């Protein structure tokens, strides 16, 4: 740098592009540096450390001394409780896509039409998503408890025989949990779909109408293909959310009764207490599963994007 400043002015001119390059690089380093350090320090480093801790038998206190290789992973994958938790995560994932998706698209299509009170409906549907997760969870927990509001209502309207401990019955608890999750997250899905619908040009629908297509045909052949990218993004977010599901379960059931609503993240917290090495192994498995699912979906989603409705016209 001293050389540059010491150099005479005429020589400077041809060097300008290179000097600009150095300056640019410095600027890049300066602006991305802090973010990069934070990202490396608080995201990448913990992931690497978790992978490292997972190879030890460690009670969280004192130095890492007892290296045990992959024993923590073997132990986790042989624990029926953990396998059940993985199964629950995937059950929620599949149910979300199969039930919440069509439901959200249907409601979004309805709300996209001109009708009275549309703004109010839109706001109401979005309310659960805005509620804090813990508050919503506690409200549901109180409503669904054996002496709670749901059972009280059922008894008042003469359906007392349907009353039961909703979150304490291992046979139905996961289903009840899914209903709560649907209530909580459907608003978000609908909002995304509505946003997607805003991007569908009115002209295409008019053109279809002129060609004699009825409302169903228009939705099926025009609207749905055009909002497919939105649907795929929602599926992606929903899958990641399902795999990492924690807070709603923790607040309402803590994974119970007898593991019926347990998820990987809940299992990690409960079994990682006093054994952070084992907990780290669970975290790494959760990370790996999420990563694989995300990558596989992105690959297939991208393939579908290329063969999607917008480009298929060129193929024909």
């Amino acid at each position, binding site marked *: 740098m001293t050389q540059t400043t010491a150099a005479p002015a005429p020589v400077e001119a041809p060097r300008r592009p290179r000097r600009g390059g150095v300056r640019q690089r410095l600027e890049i380093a*300066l602006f991305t540096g802090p973010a990069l350090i934070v990202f490396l320090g608080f995201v990448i480093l913990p992931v690497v450390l978790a992978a490292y801790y997972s190879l030890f*038998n460690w009670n969280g*206190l004192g130095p890492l001394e007892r290296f045990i290789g992959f024993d923590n992973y073997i132990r986790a994958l042989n624990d029926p409780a953990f396998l059940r938790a993985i199964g629950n995560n995937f059950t929620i994932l599949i149910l979300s896509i199969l039930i919440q998706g069509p439901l959200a698209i249907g409601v979004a299509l309805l709300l996209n039409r001109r009708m009275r009170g549309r703004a109010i409906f839109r706001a109401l549907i979005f309310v659960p998503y805005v509620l804090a997760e813990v508050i919503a969870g506690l409200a549901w*927990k109180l409503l669904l*408890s054996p002496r709670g509001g749901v059972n009280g209502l059922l008894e008042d309207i003469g359906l007392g025989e349907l009353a039961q401990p909703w979150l304490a*019955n291992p046979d139905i608890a996961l289903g009840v949990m899914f209903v709560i999750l649907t209530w909580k997250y459907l608003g978000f899905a609908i909002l995304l779909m509505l946003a997607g619908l805003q991007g569908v040009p009115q002209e295409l629908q008019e053109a279809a109408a002129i060609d004699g297509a009825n409302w169903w045909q228009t939705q099926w052949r025009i609207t749905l293909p055009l909002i497919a990218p939105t649907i795929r993004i929602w599926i992606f977010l929903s899958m990641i959310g399902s795999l990492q599901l924690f807070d709603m379960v923790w607040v309402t*059931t803590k994974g*119970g009764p007898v*593991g019926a609503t347990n998820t990987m993240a809940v299992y990690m917290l409960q079994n990682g207490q*006093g054994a952070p090495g084992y907990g780290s192994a669970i975290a790494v498995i959760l990370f790996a599963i999420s990563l694989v699912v995300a990558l596989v979906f992105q690959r297939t989603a991208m393939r579908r994007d290329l063969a999607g409705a917008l480009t298929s016209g060129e193929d024909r």
Partner: protein
Amino acid sequence: MNNRTKRLGALIAASTVALLGVAGCTGPSSGDGDEVKIVWWHNATSDPLQGLWADVAAEFEDAHPGVKVEVTGYQNEDLQRTLIPNALQSGDAPDLFMVWPGGEVRSQAEAGYLRDLTSDLSAEIAEFGGVVKPWEVDGKQYAMPFSFGITGIWYNTELFAQAGITSTPTTLPELVTAVEKLKGIGVEPIAVGAGDLWPAGHWWYQFALNACSTATLQSAIPDLDFSDPCWIKAGEMLEDFLAVEPFNKGFLATPAQTGADSSNGLMAAGVAAMEFMGPWNSGTIGALTEDGEVPEWLGWFPFPSVPGGAGDPTITMGGGDGWGISVDAPEETVELLKYLSSAEVQSRFAAIGSGIPANPGAASALTDENLKSIAAGLAGSSYVQLWLDSALGPAFGNPLNQAIVNIFGGTGTPEDVVKALEDTAAAQ
């Protein structure tokens, strides 16, 4: 240009300093200037106990000019499972903090975080007697208890009278009869917070005490050897008792202490008649009554004897809370702990009814009838077995209690509990 480079350099330097500054925040816990700061963490999040600890801290500050005591109460599980282990591991530990007996004090002491109090508090250790043993590791005292009591059955005297139960059950068959009578008047006989796992765990621990001989208990836990058939017998006793259906509706999702639908809440509302719990229970039930007071109808009796086991009927199950001092704590912390262990502070602890004082000199200050019964039960015990999850250590808590709750839910067997114990032991 030169200026610009300088400015750039200054910026980089400034951000580096800022980052280092963040990293440098975790210094020693002494305050500004000559003032000594003692950081004290406990688990009392409501009065009267929270107020007592605050008063004690203020009195200590007055008596020791230049010492500042920063006292904070945290929710028990957060404190025990997250806050303290993380603080110890990060090297920024509180100076005085709650230490749980058994496995927990052992792992903290072995990792070198706790100050050896054997000589510092030799007078207090002698004064307290055998109650300090659960906080002893390899013959050295690493924490001083401030409360110690045994688990028993808390019950609603009014509901018992309504159901026509004239005397408290002393044997398991009598308890079963009481359960039937209580069902007859339409109340939930026994509340159990199996949603939190450990309250259900305590039932199995109690049956293990009834099934196993004292010698087996004393050797199995340190050796982690659960081959004695009595450990399976404990689960079978529990299964037999569960067949009576003594527990509240939806017990699998019932929490222990939070809200009206917790087992404490069911007791407070008079919906359930009994709960098997530790000595803190009058306080946590009282917190859930309409007026926030401990109900007058609350009674206590020791767990009934169980026929058919090898267990000594005079053995009881219990535990307590202690104070430990970090190795890095200022010397004044030892004085604070001595003050906390004094008969004076312990008597005030006893008088507010938050638990049984560990200092025997303070037992006479107990005013609460139930705590007096517990103290009497404790005095009559031939041996007090620490709650098994405490005795075995934090890594055992969840697998053991989950396996026990599986028996409650009808999806697990007595053998599964022993397998969970053995699997966890193998991973230690």
